[in-house]
């Protein structure tokens, strides 16, 4: 599914990410944890071909992602507000994204209907521009848009921050559902060790751009992670 070989990224000679090899098979929920500056977002940006690797490459379905459009058909992602088009109202944005994945108006309406709970009645039908929504609601809009194209791979950067407690619980349930029902490959980074151990079957710890732990989640994983990050 996702294959990383000898991937390196350096800025002005300083290596910020160095992953010798990593394979994420179809249907795996992959959690990425690490302190600020560990290279989590850089790694996601490299997978999404938003920055150029200094060395090595990322392949999705045996095709390199670099300067390629193919992987975009099967990948849904939300890293930050740059992934939103903030001068549109949510409906316009969902419509736009839906059309890119060849959805009909009916498909989109039906899909949004299932998201009503997640939005908690605050987003749809409000006729507000996305830029005028709170950070939490913007995040919800971004996550929903990432799912709109029925992706096989979902990439989310810190999806739980800025969400209210109910939405965090809903999102967890929701991600677990997607895994079970659609066997979706998920890459999720988080600072919250609780959440990430609940959602992900495999957890990788990054530190200063290097993989320092690669764990299959079990009952002791949370303790192990807490021990690792304790100062």
């Amino acid at each position, binding site marked *: 599914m996702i294959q990383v070989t000898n991937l390196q990224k350096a800025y002005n000679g300083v290596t910020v990410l160095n992953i010798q090899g990593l394979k994420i098979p179809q249907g795996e929920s992959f959690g990425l944890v690490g302190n600020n500056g560990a290279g989590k977002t850089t790694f996601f940006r490299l997978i999404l071909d*938003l920055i150029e690797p200094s060395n090595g490459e990322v392949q999705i379905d045996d095709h390199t992602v670099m300067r390629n459009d193919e992987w*975009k058909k099967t990948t849904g992602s939300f890293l930050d507000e*740059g992934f939103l088009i903030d*001068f*549109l109202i949510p409906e316009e944005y969902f419509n736009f994204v839906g059309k890119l994945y060849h959805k009909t108006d009916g498909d989109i309406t039906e899909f949004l209907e299932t998201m009503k709970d997640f939005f908690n009645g605050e987003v749809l039908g409000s006729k507000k521009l996305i830029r005028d929504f709170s950070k939490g609601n913007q995040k919800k809009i971004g996550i929903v848009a990432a799912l709109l*194209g029925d992706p096989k791979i979902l990439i989310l950067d810190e999806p739980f921050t800025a969400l209210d407690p109910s939405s965090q619980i809903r999102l967890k349930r929701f991600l677990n559902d997607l895994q079970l029902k659609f066997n979706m490959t998920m890459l999720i980074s988080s600072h919250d060790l609780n959440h990430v151990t609940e959602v992900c079957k495999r957890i990788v710890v990054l530190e200063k751009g290097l993989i320092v732990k690669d764990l299959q989640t079990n009952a002791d994983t949370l303790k192990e992670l807490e021990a690792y990050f304790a100062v």
Partner: protein
Amino acid sequence: MLIKDLLSHEWKKSIRAKGFYKNLAVNILLGFVGLYFATILLLLGFKLDEILEKAHKTLNPMELFNGAMLYILLIGLAFRFFMQQLNTFNLPPYQVLPIKRSSLINFLLLKPLFSPVNYILLLMVIPFAVQSVVGYYSAAVAVRFVLSFVLLVWFNSFTAAFLKRKYGSGLFSFLIVIAVLACIAALEYFKVFSLFDMSRALYGFIVLKTIGLLLPLSAVALAFFLNKWFFAQNYYPERFNVKLKGDKVRTTQLSFLNRFGIIGELISVEIKLILRHKRTKSILYMSGFFLLYGLMFYTQPVYAKSNGMLFFVAMFITGLLMFMYGQWTISWDSSHFDSLMTRNIPIRTYLNANYYLLVAFNLICFVLTTPYFYFGMKIVYMHVAAFIFNIGVNVFLLLFLATFNTKRIDLSKAQVMNYQGTTFKSFLIVLPIMFIPMIIVAALSALTSMTVALWTLTFLGIAGIVFRKYLITVCVNQFNRRKYKLAEGFREGE
């Protein structure tokens, strides 16, 4: 003390803004442009007496100038209404400190008066007063003449700020102002009502009588207190600061574009981008004025012989929207560039959408400039050649060169006359596109004939249209080469 502190905070705010030094080159260039206009005004000031002397048989220069005063006032007001940025100084951090609110409001209102740009016309008025008014009347009258002009500037500044805060400067108010100005001009032209005569009488009184200055002074006071009243009515900053906008957005229906698939969707997003940001909208208004550029040149016999110049004008107005928007053609998307790059949009489709949008702009401008055909067949030939050259050659040049503009444009902040995101590269992109065709025409028409020059450009344009697919591929490759630089640059906030 307080005013001094506030002024120093404002000063720090402007020089500590990120990107101030990065943009130093642009600021210096703008400074030169300002200097150029200042010089022209100063020279005009010294010549004005001579010009007005010849302009009318019975009225003397100052009387003529007085007649124009109310026009200067109205046009200045309209200009400020659309161009002047509201002084939106950030109240909340100060509001919680023990500072009297009225001092803050006074600061907010009076600060714009200290901007030297307000007084640039004095460069023309003062030499005129010294040369002409002193000669016809006396030094005292000349002083009053200059003072009355300063008061006019103050009045305009206050009134425009009030109107803008109260009514906002949307498309609707724009149309009303234009309509009012057109009515006054028409009334004057058809000699129904002369604002000129009224202005002459009014300013004659103001300038010649000792107590005359009390009149504009009270007008300024009135305008000032109107503003104070507005702030008294709207106590909380959320009511007046930054934007006067309702919560609900009118959703633009562009459903006809849906038929064109992903390209149509991308274009409709781009059109919404233009319609929902102040900066892009003000470019649209300014384009309206620029369309009249042709009137200045086509009517002057002086330019009839300089083919290069005429063609420059023809190309500029038939490709107006393309030149105005096209120079930032990819940067407009900088705030949601990541979104576009990770969704299911092949790069070719993305560039095709931009291409069709620019072609549509050209088509619109070409149609809008057809009234110029009235000035003769030469104009028709020039416009057609310019149009074909624009959509065959310039479009691709813009798409290609736009990939070098990696500066983020922050549309949500920017307003009118905002040069944020403008770098030296922006100029380098536009200069060859605008001036090379002009040089080609000037050279070819001098060596051979205008017909040969225009046919040459037309053929180049047609070739561009025929090899469109290939040229887009060149742009796609270029885009892919520059993609990471673009994404990185756009992610960097100011």
